[in-house]
């Protein structure tokens, strides 16, 4: 058997790194700011990392030559994102008791629904 190392173009390597770093930073800085309000947001918006992730993501999708599907990983990420959104929604919907549970359930399933729709 001959193993072949997968190679990337420079643009793909940079955009891929940019997307992963931006996404990771967005989650990390957002969680830090949640734990210590103002730690990040006093100086700049944590959403700058989201913008950067979108820019790198669009670039990466334009230059990627082939990709591997990882259904289990993708589903797990969608579910984890749904749980995070549910926690935020529950916290933010204090005061609208009648809709709180409904909105939280919507938040849990929204990323998974979007993932399924995109896949289809």
């Amino acid at each position, binding site marked *: 058997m001959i193993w072949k190392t997968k*190679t*990337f173009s*420079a643009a793909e*390597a*940079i955009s891929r*790194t*940019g997307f992963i*770093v931006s996404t*990771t*930073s967005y989650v*990390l*800085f957002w969680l830090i700011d949640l734990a*210590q309000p*103002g*730690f*990040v*947001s*006093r*100086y700049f918006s944590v959403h700058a*990392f989201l913008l950067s992730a979108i820019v790198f993501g669009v670039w990466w999708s334009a230059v990627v030559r082939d990709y591997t599907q990882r259904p289990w990983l993708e589903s797990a990420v969608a579910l984890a994102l749904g749980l995070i959104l549910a926690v935020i929604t529950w916290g933010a919907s204090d005061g609208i008791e009648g809709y709180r549970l409904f909105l939280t359930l919507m938040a849990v399933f929204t990323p998974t629904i979007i993932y399924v729709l995109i896949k289809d």
Partner: protein
Amino acid sequence: MTFITRIAQLIIILAPVVILGWLATQWFVPSGVFFVEHIVGDESPFIDELGPSQRVSDAVDGEQSIIADPAFFFVHPHRDFEAVQLEVWFQNEDLPIVELGALSGLDPEAYKLLPLHNLLIDESNWSRMEQDGLLLLQREKTYGSIADFFASPPSRDQVATYRTGYDVPYRIDGYSPTDRWQGIDVSLRGHHEFKTYIKNETLRFNFEYMDMNRDEGEDVVRITVFNEQGQPVAEARASDDGDSSDDARPSGLESLELTAGGLAEGVYKVVMSTTRDVFFRTMKTPQQKIVFLNTVFIGDEVGFSEPPRGAKLWTTTKWLRAQTRHAEGVQTLTGDSASVEIDQPYEWYPLELTGSGVESVEIPFGDIEIVTEGKIAFSSSQYFDPDPAPLSAYATLDQMEVDYVLAHYTSPRQEGEWLVADIGFLVDDIVNDEGTWKFSFSTPGILDLEAEMIVHKTNLWFYKDPMGL
């Protein structure tokens, strides 16, 4: 992959690491000093704009005018600190005294005020000398140094003070104690402070009060006596009447005795610490000298006395402010030399007395708050002024008839067209309301003089232990 690609990837990975490191230094402040500059009109996560909008102009080109008193701003420190130093850049041409205060107490609201600019001192042509932050003005140069002044101090009535004490004890010649009790039959609402004089006698006060239960919460009464060194020497306490609701059902007339024997001759300060639900209806005492400090709140007598008793007060201060909070409190205050109509609630009305010596002011009925920088007695014979006259925005040095001014004051420095004043506060002296500090400019007389104070910027240095988290 090329070397350039690797470098680009490294930069992308390092960027958030560097940002996180920078944010950590902002948070932990390893140097021990955190600096914030705020030019009026700029947005800052640390300092809010000056307000309220009715008392300040719009900020234009880095300038904002304060046109009414008091104007304030909020500071939002991002972590714990031990001290804060403020540097205020401003212009002031007409206001006699400009100070900046930090909110240091709630219920009643109290500020620790420090001087920014004192035109009475800075524009005086009296002989001036300074040493270690203390400043001495002399009408005629008598003393060669501040040390000489304290070695052989003049009598108290020759000295005016500003933001400093004067450690020459006050004594009344020919004073002798009496056993005759006298009453102060005035409804005093909430927290009050007064001074009394003791010589070879027991300090005795009897307070009769009612808990009107208009606001929710317990209404504890604590009366504390402080000696001339500011040390507590006696205390009397009473707990709540058992009704901590806001049902407006008054308690009966409660009584509280305050007794302190064996006190050395001198002036004693008595602090009546309680909530606004508590109305002191009468005070009885054999003490002959009693003057209230700075603020009196003549309470309404609903549910106690019909018709209301009102009050008559005596003072030597020339400027008072009064307000009522209810339509029922609208009335006319009549002084010996001037009067003022309290036309509507929630508006402060100045009463400028022009006579000399002790003047009386007639208050027909209660629900009136009176604020002054001087002393207030409820009988002419009880009036005395144990403190050196404080410098006031409402009297010139000549009007005060003093020969010396002792002040804890440093004049602001000139930076181009701006005056720059530095003041500092310990964080322990500032009320921290969910991570927010309140600072207020005190500009007495600003409306009467139709004056303004122009603020350009405020620099803040926050200090902490460099090693502390």
